[in-house]
């Protein structure tokens, strides 16, 4: 498998609504009872238009408030996330898939009521040997922009396949 040929390929795109119920439930799930996430009056009192979102929210947001009729054209042309093609290819000989690293870069706050557009692409793939096993690293960058077209969050996702 020519891993380098995957660098730069789009992983997907989507449009998602940042909804209060979903954000409040997510905050509760990470044990966060900060009133800003749950109470509109508290959020407005702190200068937000709507409840803000916890730091790791966007990672989950692609599965929330995702309305079929609003989705952009699939940038993979229907072939699906190329990251999964790489993983499925590697898994033919066994092994384990691990979420190795995750990073968020915050450009502007995200608040309930926002409509986010996201686009992802593979930015790097590399392999190295560790303890006699081949470790393959796939790095995906996803940029979320708000309804004004301004970038709000950049996510960097590092998935690892550890060979059998």
């Amino acid at each position, binding site marked *: 498998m020519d891993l380098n040929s995957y660098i730069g390929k789009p992983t997907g795109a989507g449009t998602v609504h940042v909804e209060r119920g*979903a954000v409040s439930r997510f905050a509760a799930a990470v044990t966060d009872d900060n009133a800003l996430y749950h109470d509109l009056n508290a959020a407005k009192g*702190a200068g937000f238009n709507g409840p803000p979102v916890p*730091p790791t929210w966007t990672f*989950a947001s692609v*599965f929330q408030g995702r309305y079929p009729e609003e989705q952009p054209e699939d940038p993979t042309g229907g072939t699906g996330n190329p990251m999964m093609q790489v993983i499925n290819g590697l898994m033919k000989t066994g092994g384990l898939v691990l*979420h190795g690293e995750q*990073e*968020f870069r*915050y450009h502007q*706050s995200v608040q309930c009521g926002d409509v986010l557009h996201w686009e992802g692409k593979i930015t790097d793939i590399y392999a190295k040997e560790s303890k006699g096993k081949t470790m393959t690293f796939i790095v995906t960058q996803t940029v979320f922009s708000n309804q004004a077209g301004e970038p709000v969050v950049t996510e960097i996702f590092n998935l690892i396949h550890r060979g059998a």
Partner: protein
Amino acid sequence: MSKTISAIKLNYGDINKGDEAPVVSHELGRTDLVKYAGASGDFNPMHTDEVAAQAAGLPSVFGHGMFSMGLLGRAITDWAGVGNVKRYGVRFTKQTWPGETLSTKIVVSDKEVTEEGKIIVAEVLLHNEVGEIKVSGTARVLAA
């Protein structure tokens, strides 16, 4: 330069290398895994289905890495204020298991004045009751 809306809680002049943020501790239960699965949309059965997890050779279900990152993120925003995190990244080093008590550790490693403003840099990690590190990384937060 990006907008910051909510109140900045940290005073740049008062923060020094080695300072620690208040610790958040949480005993991980299976209900946490179910709640996180539902709220995040990550329904990997290794996190929610004990039968499937044991069939795969695991002792039990285990926690989502992103739950750990979320719990640690809560400790960061409790300390620095919501809306004041500029960057937050971790490596996932160990799985978490039901029954473990997970605790945060946030230690200031640097501070600098940048185009983004007055930035506090902290080494951040989550560990269990015997000190095993589950996730570790870095956060950059705004100070006033």
